[in-house]
């Protein structure tokens, strides 16, 4: 008897018992169940929740693999300087790089999934419903959007908070107002700000070494990895240009949250999601437009001479408007977070507004946030809250337009055949 049979047997054994949802979840996660419904006929598409979730995970796997190598690459580059003649095989895809990623990124992933699914299982057992697939995507998103040195216990606390307060209190998967992964990140950001910002958190060991040096150690070299936005927020644009080229930003060979940097892979993931019709192209496109518009406005303000080099906003405002898309978490947020079908706008017209404001506000918060030069997660959470309002007005607008059409309708008189009067709408 194979694994499938055994799982089926366990499932039968626990049927109707309290722990049933937990065993059902393990069974249906691995296999399609044998049972069919006995009453009524159901036509269903193959693209159920599980497949939707798995498609997003597939789009994220290249990013995850890149981030494992980048973790090591940033660490060794911070120690020895960036390699002069960069070659992908010699400097990036090396075993040393991968090892750092394996010991730092995989534990984050394991804690994220372990704790998150545990909470889901507990809630399913208490409330007596089946375990929902909702955490599958959140679980892989979370390690990709936190700094690499985030302590595992902090991540665990944040995951419990995010899943319980962000999702379960609203009624579980599909009922949440806020994106759970971003709720987790926001919790970490407000609870432990020193672990989430500055130039010592984005590169493996940077913080540990600086603490050791503070404590009096002399045999360690200090390392730091400032993000592109960090440089700009301190008006050190010229110094930043020396370290990172535009192509570095596009390919993702820069410090940042674990998986937010590889714009190229995120772009491919986004195209994959659009072609598989999982994510909305309207949201992605309008968010890109929104960020470009805001970036252009800031560039123009600098052009007009309203903001000069002495201003603390100069560095970020004078940053080329399109480059905002290839640094920080903007691309990652637009492709994987803004397009969350549960928390985003539902109407097609609403999606345009929703996406536009995400891009627009992200760049605005980047420039004006005094504490932290990144604002994508705040912008998306804010628009999550406004998404139902946007939808409401879009639907009301549609109703109003059709009511007006009805007002202008005329009733035709009976014709010679004696047919009943027809209602003919005049298109307005």
């Amino acid at each position, binding site marked *: 008897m194979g694994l499938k049979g055994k799982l089926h047997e366990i499932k039968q054994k626990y049927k109707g018992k309290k722990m049933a949802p937990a065993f059902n979840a393990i069974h249906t996660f691995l296999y399609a169940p044998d049972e069919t419904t006995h009453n009524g006929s159901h036509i269903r598409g193959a693209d159920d929740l599980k497949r939707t979730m798995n498609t997003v995970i597939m789009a994220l796997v290249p990013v995850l693999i890149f981030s494992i190598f980048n973790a090591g690459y940033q660490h060794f580059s911070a120690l020895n300087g960036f390699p002069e003649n960069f070659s992908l095989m010699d400097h990036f895809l090396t075993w040393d790089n991968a090892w750092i990623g394996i010991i730092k990124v995989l534990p984050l992933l394991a804690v994220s999934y372990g704790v998150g699914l545990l909470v889901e299982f507990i809630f399913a057992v208490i409330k007596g419903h089946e375990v929902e697939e909702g955490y599958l995507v959140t679980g892989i998103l979370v390690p990709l959007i936190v700094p690499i040195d985030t302590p595992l216990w*902090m991540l665990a606390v944040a995951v419990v908070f995010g899943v319980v307060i962000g999702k379960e209190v609203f009624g579980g998967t599909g009922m949440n107002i806020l994106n759970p992964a971003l709720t987790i990140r926001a*919790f970490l950001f407000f609870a432990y700000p020193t672990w989430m910002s500055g130039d010592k958190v984005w590169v493996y060991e940077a913080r540990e070494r600086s603490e050791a040096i503070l404590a009096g150690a002399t045999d360690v070299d200090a390392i730091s990895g400032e993000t592109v936005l960090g440089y700009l927020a301190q008006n050190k644009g010229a110094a930043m240009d020396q370290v990172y080229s535009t192509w570095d930003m596009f390919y993702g060979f820069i410090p940042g949250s674990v998986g937010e940097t590889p714009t190229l892979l995120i772009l491919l993931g986004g195209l994959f999601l659009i072609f598989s019709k999982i994510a909305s192209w309207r949201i992605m496109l309008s968010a890109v437009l929104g960020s470009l518009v805001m970036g252009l406005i800031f560039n123009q303000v600098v052009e007009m001479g309203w903001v000069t080099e002495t201003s603390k906003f100069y560095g970020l405002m004078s940053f080329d408007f399109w480059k905002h898309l290839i640094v920080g978490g903007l691309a990652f947020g637009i492709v994987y977070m803004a397009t969350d079908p549960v928390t985003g706008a539902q109407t097609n017209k609403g999606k345009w507004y929703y996406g536009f404001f995400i891009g627009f506000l992200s760049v605005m918060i980047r420039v004006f946030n005094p504490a932290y030069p990144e604002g994508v997660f705040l912008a998306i959470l804010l628009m999550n809250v406004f998404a139902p309002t946007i939808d409401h007005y879009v639907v009301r607008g549609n109703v109003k337009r059709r009511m007006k059409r009805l007002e202008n309708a005329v009733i035709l008189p009976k014709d010679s055949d004696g047919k009943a009067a027809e209602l003919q709408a005049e298109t307005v």
Partner: protein
Amino acid sequence: MALLSKKDTSLILDPLADNNPITIQVLGICSALAITAELEASIVMAVAVVFVLGIGNVVISLMRNIIPSKIRIIVQLIVVATLVIVVDQVLKAFAYELSKTLGAFVGLIITNCIIMGRFEAFALANGPWKSFLDGIGNALGYGVILIIVGFFRELLGSGTLLGIPVLGDPILKTGLYATGYENNGFMIIPPAALIVVGIIIWVQRARTPALVEEN
């Protein structure tokens, strides 16, 4: 004869749990969010409200038959304002540091919905003894929640209780901090109080399903 009849007892005990002003009536939330970052401030606020509401209810109850109903809100406000000024002055005289922490919120007891709510709903229609018990009961119900919220926010946010470090020293890394534990900055900011109050409401309704409102 017992000091309190059964009905009198329920006047005091009901607002502590099943008819709590914060978790059931959802009144007085503003101050519950604002001043509960420290346990000491929560306790002082609770005591202040017990004083203001206990006395205020009696005063209003004594005057209930001579207050013209058209100007009753103004009369009520004057009574609260007088009592609040007394509290404020006492705090300034004997606990100046604390009165600075509480800041405007002592003055703002006057706008605490629970106080006007109890005047309107109870003191205007009941005798002074019953009104006194009702005032004390509701203020205690408010105070209990304040103290619970203050306890968790100060413990998790600052690692102290009543200003005394209980988890070790975060700078010297002693006690719990030696294991890598850190204070949770989120608990210091007012939104955390909203979430803690929410969790209390959740726990209470999960334990007493009769309290759950129908849709």
